[in-house]
């Protein structure tokens, strides 16, 4: 009997010893590790991120690869499902670095997962660039190895408010509601600060549990506050629930703005006509008029066209910012002329390049404060850029009419 038990323990030890999958090592390929949400709350957004990453990978590989210090490399991305779970994300990143010996890390979707992974890459001193976690809290920790190509969370709804303030009649009151998670709370805080400093009265400001399935109470409360503008910091799921809830309880605001949701094709598909007139803060738009540096598609429209041809839908900003994430690495690696993590990290820190997505430059905390946001609106089932006028391809429609008229 003792033998049987000891055997069990030995077997267990053997499983642990031989369990992990073999590590990859190939001299001619630069390998990136990417832990993304394939399941869980952010599964949809994780899928969009993956599309963005893969688009870049296929483009680079079909255009001769990356030239680093005189040698040409192909690129490959190793994926794993972090289940929208911060702890899993951190574990996977550690596994990528320790077991699989990847060269660099591409960030996950979401701020909480990025936050957790940041601690890991900092410890192992492997640079990570992400394009889908905009919370500034991550970058206020003094980390040196994480960079974000997207604009900070606070900015998401500022331009929406800006747009509103330029409309006639000028709105006076705003209701802000956010999911109780890192990203959404910062979005809400940014919106609240911007609103108050620009003369709007915040008549409702509250949060709901991050994975809530019922928002009727919040909707009722917002209705009772009777705001001109309703703003939401959250993700696709809550955006859908809220917009549905507003219709159900016949909430009549003049403007509805969401941080995440309107840009995704799923939002329009699920809501049909009820999605019309909704505004969304966006990190990028196909109408953006940047002229990117050599080495990749230089123009937003061309990117959108190529992406659509490959994936069957016009890229939303999640796709674009993910591609931009990879671009940051591309230019930094070529600038560093080496795959040494420290050199690449330093090259990232001093990166200053314009791409189809906008300028890629990081402040000394590592986040891209130099790229402006824009505002999209859904009009007749189409997503159009309406603000600021420099990048707009349509005029904003305001105020939103009765539900029956959408």
């Amino acid at each position: 009997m003792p033998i049987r038990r000891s055997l069990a323990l030995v077997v267990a030890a053997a499983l642990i010893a031989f369990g992990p999958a073999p590590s990859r090592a190939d001299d001619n390929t630069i390998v990136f590790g990417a832990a993304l949400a394939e399941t869980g709350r952010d599964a949809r957004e994780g899928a969009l991120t993956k599309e963005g990453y893969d688009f870049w990978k296929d483009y680079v590989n079909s255009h001769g690869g990356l030239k680093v210090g005189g040698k040409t490399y192909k690129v490959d991305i190793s994926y794993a499902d972090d289940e929208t779970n911060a702890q899993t994300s951190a574990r996977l990143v550690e596994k990528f670095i320790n077991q699989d010996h990847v060269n660099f890390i591409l960030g996950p979707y979401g701020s909480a997962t990025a936050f957790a992974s940041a601690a890991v890459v900092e410890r192992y001193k492997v640079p990570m660039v992400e394009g889908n976690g905009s919370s500034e809290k991550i970058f206020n920790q003094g980390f040196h190895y994480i960079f974000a190509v997207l604009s900070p969370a606070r900015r998401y709804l500022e331009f929406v408010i800006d747009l509103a303030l330029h409309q006639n009649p000028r709105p006076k009151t705003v209701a802000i509601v956010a999911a109780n998670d890192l990203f959404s709370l910062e979005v809400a805080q940014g919106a609240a600060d911007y609103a108050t400093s620009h003369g709007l009265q915040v008549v409702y400001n509250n949060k709901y549990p991050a994975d809530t399935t019922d928002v009727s109470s919040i909707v009722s409360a917002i209705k009772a506050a009777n705001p001109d503008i309703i703003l939401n910091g959250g993700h696709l799921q809550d955006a859908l629930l809220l917009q549905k809830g507003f219709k159900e309880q016949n909430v009549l605001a003049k403007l509805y703005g969401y941080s995440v949701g309107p840009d995704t094709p799923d939002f329009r598909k699920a809501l049909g006509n009820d999605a019309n007139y909704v505004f969304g803060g966006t990190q990028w738009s196909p109408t953006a008029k940047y002229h990117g540096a050599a080495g990749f598609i230089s123009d937003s429209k061309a990117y959108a066209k190529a992406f659509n041809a490959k994936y069957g839908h016009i890229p939303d900003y999640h796709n674009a910012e993910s591609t931009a994430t990879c671009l940051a690495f591309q230019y930094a690696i070529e600038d560093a002329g080496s795959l040494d993590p420290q050199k690449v990290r330093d090259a990232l820190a001093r990166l200053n390049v314009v791409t189809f997505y906008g300028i890629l430059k990081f402040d000394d905390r590592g986040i891209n404060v130099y790229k402006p946001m824009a505002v999209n609106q859904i009009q007749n089932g189409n997503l159009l850029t309406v603000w600021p006028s420099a990048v707009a391809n349509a005029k904003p429609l305001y105020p939103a009419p009765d539900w029956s008229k959408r």
Partner: protein
Amino acid sequence: MGGISGSRPALLAVVAVLGALLLVPALHNGYYENLCRGILMFGAMALGWNFIGGYTGYVSFGNVVYFGLGAYTSAALAEHGVENVWVAMPLAMVVAAVFAVVLGLPILRLRGHYFGIATLGIALATQEIIANVDALGGGTGVTLRQAEWFSQYYYAMWLVCAASLLVTWLAARSKFGYALVAIRENEDAAAVLGINATAYKIAAWAISGMMAAPAGAVFAFANGFVDPPTAFSVDNNVFPIVMTILGGAGTVAGPVVGAIVLTAINETLWSHFPQIHTLFFGAVIVLVVLFLPRGLLYLRRGARGGWRGFLGSLTVYRV
């Protein structure tokens, strides 16, 4: 030995493994260190669950609350500039003990299913409440600066697991342990015999918390990040229970054996079948419950009588 301590050879094997685990940081492999630290963590949590669920017979479905409280003790300290795991651990134990005594008085009056749900409710409610306390990071979570000497967290976790094992062993050989088992077998009879069931139950629950909480405190530092879903996760709640059952509830070594075996299985599944590892894990749980309801350590009894005896034991609970 024997009695309520469980199998002696198993205990010796576990002690040997623990000794070996002490050497892991010397390998300088972050992955293995992480993995073994996880085994130690779950070992401590399983021992904690075993104390209230296995020995005392009060099946708690919310012991993760202690782990979470421990993790947040570290987080709270970090928010106030004290980033020292060795301070966090004892403080976490105090928090757990207070929590157990305050809530134990009303909750431990419930029996069976009701106690289980009540503990689950407590865990969920605590998670929600903490998510709304901005001073603890609210829904956004807290990062903890990690020390230069990272392996100290490994040793700290080892200490928690080893101490928990020691306490369990001591209790199993003492009057305290026998009193708990008496309560488990027939609480009313035990009371008639003069055992102050309430006091013993609360003590048991407090001790179980004092094993899980420091594990959480160390975890917070080792992970570098704590938020409500991470600290109070379903995995952290269920794994210790499954591990204890797998190894053998109501024994000293069982929880640790279960922790080792289940971690090995889980890790293997995770590495080789990342898409469906949870699916397999669910299957593992179902199989364990159906075929090994009394755990690996009791396998001997089922094996008596050969195959027919084993199959017969499967249908013992049928209608």
